[in-house]
C-alpha cells in the first residue's frame, strides 16, 4: 500500500482477539483495539491530528505556536505533526512522571516547561495549573498562539465518534462491553456513543480509573474526573478501579500470552475488563463481545515498570554473589575490620590497597592518604562479576561510617581476599584527628 503522508496512517487500527487461554473467559470474546499501531505509537495520534488538521495550514501561515497540556502521548503526536509543518510547539505540564515518553518528546524537539502545581492533580483553577497558564497565554495573544486543549475540546470525543467507534462497529457485528481508561475521557465517550448509535444501544461502557494516590499514565481517579470539561458520568455504566502494579502484571500477561507489546495503561484497561467480565461470564447463556483499548506500546515505560516490578529485570541473586551474601554484622567483627586507633600502624606494616567507596565528589574533598576511589555502585559490580584485585595484597575498604565496607570485607574474605573495613569509617578517622588529604 502506498501513502503520501504519514497522517494517512492514523486510525483504521486492527481489532485483535485475545486468546481465551490468556484471559480465561468462557462466554465472552475479548478484543483489543490496537491503538498502539498508530504511526506515532498511541491512541492520541487520532486526537492530535483530529483536532488540529483543519487549522494546521493557518497555524503554519500565521507562524502560530501550538501550546498543549501534555508531555506524554498527545505531546509526542503533536510534536511529530508540528515538525512536519515547521510549526513551533510549547508543552506546559506538571512535572512529568514517565521520563521515557518525555525524553522522546524532547528528542523530537519539543520545548517542555514543567510547572509546580499547588495540588498533585489536574486543577484548572490553580493559578499554576498548566491548563490555566496556557489558556491565559493564548488569550493574551490569540494571533500567535494556538491551544488544541485536549481536556476540554469537544473535537476530542468527536474524533473517536467518527473514527474509533465507527471502525469497531464496522469490524464487529455487535459490541456488548467497552472498556477504556479515563484520562481526558474522549476515547471512551466518543467510541461508546458511536457503538450505541449504530450497533448496540444496550452497550455497557466501563471507565477504568486509577486510585487517587496511585499513578497509571493517562488515567486519573474518578475524583479528578469531575474537573474534566468533557467527562459525563451518566455516559458510563460503571467504573472499575485498578492498581498500577497489577496493571503491569496484566500488561505482562498480554505481552507474554498474546504477543501484544502494549504499555501499562493498556494493561490497566485489560485488567479492568477481565475483572469486570469474570463476574458475569458464568451467568451468560449466549456469547458476547467485549472491546478494550490497547492505547500505546511498552518500550518507553521501562523505568516505570522497573519501579513496580523489579523482578522482571532479572534482578535474581546468583549464588556466591554479593547480593546473595548473608552478612552478620554482629559476628566476630575483628576478623574483617581494622580499628582506627591501630589503622596507621597496620597500613605502615601491610601496605594495603586503600579503596574509598564514597562518591567521587566526597573523595576529592577529603580522603585517607594514598586511597583510590571506586564509588560503591561500581565497586559492587566489579566484585560481583570478577576478581579485580590481586589477592596477595591486603585491601582496606573505607566508607562514611564503616557499615557498607564491613559487608564488602566479609564477603571478599569468603572469596579468598585479605580484605578489611576501616571500623567507623572515614568519620571515625576524622574524629580521631588522623591525617586527611584533599585530591587536587
Amino acid at each position, binding site marked *: 500500500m502506498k501513502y503520501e503522508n504519514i497522517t494517512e496512517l492514523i486510525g483504521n487500527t486492527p481489532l485483535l482477539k485475545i486468546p481465551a487461554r490468556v484471559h480465561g473467559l468462557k462466554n465472552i470474546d475479548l478484543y483489543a483495539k490496537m491503538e498502539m499501531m498508530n504511526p506515532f505509537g498511541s491512541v492520541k495520534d487520532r486526537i492530535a491530528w483530529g483536532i488540529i488538521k483543519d487549522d494546521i495550514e493557518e497555524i503554519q501561515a500565521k507562524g502560530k505556536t501550538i501550546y498543549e497540556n501534555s508531555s506524554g502521548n498527545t505531546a509526542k503526536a503533536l510534536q511529530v505533526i508540528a515538525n512536519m509543518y515547521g510549526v513551533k510547539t510549547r508543552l506546559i505540564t506538571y*512535572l512529568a512522571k514517565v521520563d521515557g515518553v518525555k525524553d522522546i518528546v524532547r528528542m523530537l524537539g519539543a520545548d517542555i*516547561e*514543567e*510547572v*509546580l502545581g*499547588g*495540588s*498533585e492533580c489536574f*486543577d*484548572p*483553577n*490553580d493559578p*499554576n495549573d498548566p491548563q490555566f497558564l496556557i489558556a491565559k497565554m493564548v488569550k493574551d495573544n490569540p494571533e500567535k498562539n494556538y491551544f488544541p486543549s485536549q481536556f476540554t475540546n469537544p473535537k476530542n470525543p468527536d474524533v473517536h465518534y467518527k473514527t474509533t467507534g465507527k471502525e469497531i462497529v464496522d469490524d464487529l457485528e455487535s459490541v456488548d462491553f467497552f472498556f477504556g481508561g479515563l484520562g481526558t475521557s474522549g476515547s471512551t465517550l466518543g467510541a461508546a456513543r458511536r457503538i450505541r448509535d449504530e450497533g448496540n444501544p444496550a452497550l455497557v461502557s466501563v471507565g477504568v*480509573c486509577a*486510585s*487517587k*494516590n496511585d499513578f497509571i499514565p493517562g488515567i486519573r*481517579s*474518578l*475524583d479528578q474526573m*469531575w*474537573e474534566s*470539561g468533557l467527562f459525563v458520568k451518566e455516559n458510563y455504566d*460503571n*467504573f*472499575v*478501579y*485498578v*492498581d498500577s*502494579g*497489577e496493571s503491569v502484571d496484566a500488561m505482562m500477561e498480554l505481552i507474554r500470552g498474546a504477543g501484544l507489546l502494549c504499555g501499562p495503561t493498556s494493561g490497566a484497561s485489560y*485488567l479492568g475488563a477481565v*475483572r*469486570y467480565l469474570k*463476574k458475569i461470564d458464568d451467568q451468560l447463556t449466549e456469547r458476547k463481545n467485549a472491546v478494550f483499548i490497547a492505547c500505546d506500546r511498552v518500550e518507553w515505560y521501562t523505568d516505570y515498570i522497573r519501579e513496580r516490578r523489579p523482578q522482571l529485570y532479572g534482578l535474581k541473586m546468583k549464588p556466591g554473589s554479593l547480593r546473595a551474601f548473608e552478612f552478620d554484622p554482629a559476628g566476630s567483627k575483628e576478623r574483617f575490620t581494622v580499628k582506627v586507633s591501630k589503622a596507621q600502624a597496620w597500613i605502615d606494616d601491610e601496605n594495603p590497597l586503600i579503596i574509598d567507596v*564514597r*562518591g567521587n*565528589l*566526597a573523595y576529592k*574533598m*577529603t580522603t585517607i592518604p594514598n586511597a583510590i576511589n571506586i564509588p560503591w555502585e561500581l565497586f559492587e559490580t566489579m566484585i560481583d562479576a570478577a576478581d579485580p584485585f590481586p589477592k596477595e595484597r591486603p585491601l582496606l575498604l573505607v*566508607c*562514611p*561510617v564503616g*557499615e*557498607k565496607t564491613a559487608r564488602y570485607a566479609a564477603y571478599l574474605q569468603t572469596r579468598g581476599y585479605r580484605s578489611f573495613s576501616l571500623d567507623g*569509617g*572515614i*568519620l571515625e578517622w*576524622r574524629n580521631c584527628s588522623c591525617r586527611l588529604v584533599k585530591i587536587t
Partner: protein
Amino acid sequence: MTKLEEKRTDAAGFQSSAAEAKSDPANAGQCLADDMLESGSDRKRPRVRPAMHPAIRRFLSDEKLVFSLVDGLGSPLNVLFPKHIEETIGRFDQVYKDRQLQGTIFYTSKPNKSMALKRQASTTRVGLDVSSFGELKSALGGGFHPERIEATGPKNIDYLALCVQQNVLINVDNFVELKQIAQMSSYSPQGKKARVLVRLDGFEPGRVKFTQQDSAFGIPVKDAPAIIEFLLEHKDSIDFHGFSFHFNAGDYIRRPPAIEACLQLTFRCLELGLSPRAIDVGGGYRIRYAADQDDWNTYIEELKSSVLGNRDSLTWNDSGLGYHREDGILKGAPNFMEHYHKNDGHEDFASVIDTPLPAFDGYSTARIVSDNMFELHIEPGRALLDQCGITLSHVNFAKQSILGEQLAVLDMNRTNLNSTQLKLMTDPVLIYRNADQKPADKGVMYVGNLCLTHDMIQYHKTFPDFSPQTGDVVAFINTAAYQMDFAETHVLEQSIAKKIAIIEGEPGEFRWFLDELYNPLAIALGIKP
C-alpha cells in the same frame, strides 16, 4: 465500647483499615467502583474515619474515665499521649540509620505548647526547635540542654541575646541578625563562638521550572557571597554550621534545586576556609489524618457532587469548602488539606532525601551528605506530633439550624481547634452518655459556644450513627499538631482547654497528669510510678 466503630488493630499498626484489606491477595487491589458509587448508605452518608493509634482507641473505650475527665477538668479538654512521640521519632531515626546519616531531628515547639511532649522528647535523641523568646525559656525548662536547641524565626534582640548567652544553634533569618550576633559575641559563654545556621530562600529553579513564591523568611540565595564574606571576616566569633531552608508540605519540586544550591554553597565555604558541617532541609512532612483512602476519596467525590447540585449539601451554608459551580462545571480549589497520603511522615522525609540530584550526577541528598560526613538536620514540626493528642468536648445541646440542619452545639469554640486555616475533616469519635439515642439520618454539623454567628467547629457535615445530645462527649482525633492551642484565645471569656498527659500501663490501664506535672524522669525513677 459504645459506638466506636470496631476496626482492625493488627500488628501492622493502627493505620490499617479497608485500604489494607483491599491489598489482601484474596481480593487483591481491585474494587468495583459501583460498590463505592451506588451502595446506598456509604455514598449517602459518607464518613471520614480518623486514623487512630490503638492506645487512643482503648482510652476512648474507657467511657467512665473519659466522662470523669471532661466532667472534672472541664470542656474542652486536650488529651496528650506523650509516649507516641517516641514511636514517631524512632521511625524518623530509622531513616537516618538506614542511610548512615549523622545529624539532628529537631522537635518543633511551635505546633503545641505542651510541656509533657517537650519533656518526653527530651528523653530521646532529638533536638528542639524554638521560634520565640518564650519558647526558648520553655525549652530550657522542658529539659533540653542549650546545645540541643535550635532557634528559628525572626528574632528580636532579647531572643537573640538569650540565644547567644545560652549558646543555642541560631538559624539566622537575615543579615541584621547575623551582624547583631557578631557584635554580641563577647557576651557568649567563655571561649564559645556563636553557633549559626543561615536560612536561604529564593532558589533558582533547575531543569524543572516553577513559579517563584514570595517569602518573608530567609536570606536571598543571591546574597550568599556577601554572607560568606561576612562569615569569613568573623570566623573568630561565629562558628558557621551550614545552610538551611524550609518549605511547606508538598513542595517537592522546589526541594532538589534548594538542596543542590545549599550543598554547592557548602562546598564553596569549605574551599574558602570555613568549616560548615551540616545542611538543614527543614520540615514539611505530612500526616495521614484519615484511616482509609476510599473513605477520603468518597467524601471528596460526594462533596464535589453536592457542589454540582447532584445531592444534598455537605457544607455549612453550602459554601463548598473552596469549590463552586460555574457553567455546570466544578471550579475552585479545596481550602482543606489532603487527609490521606500513601507516604506520610518518615516516608515522606525519606523520599525527599532519596531524590536524585541532577547537579550531583544523580546522587541523592542522603548519599552526598553521608559521603561527605556532613550532618543532616530536619525540623518535622507537624509530622512528629502524629497521634500525640486528641481534643474532647461536651455537647451542650442538639438543635436545628434555621434552614433545618441538625446541629450539635459543643462546649468549645473554633479557637480551641484552630479550625480556621487547618480544617479537620475527619469524623470525631462520639461517646454517648444518653440512653435514648436518636438516629442522625440527615447528618450533623458541629457548632461552637461563642455568641457569634458561624462559630463552626467543622464546616462540613458528618454522619454519626446517632445525633449527639446534651452531655455526650465528642473527641476530635489527631489535633496535637497546630490545632490544640496554636490560636486558642479567651474570646468572650470562654475557657481555654486544659491539657492532660495520658500514659498507659497494661493495655487499657490509663493514668493522667496535668500537662505541666508530667515528668518522664520521675516516672522512670519510680517517684511517680
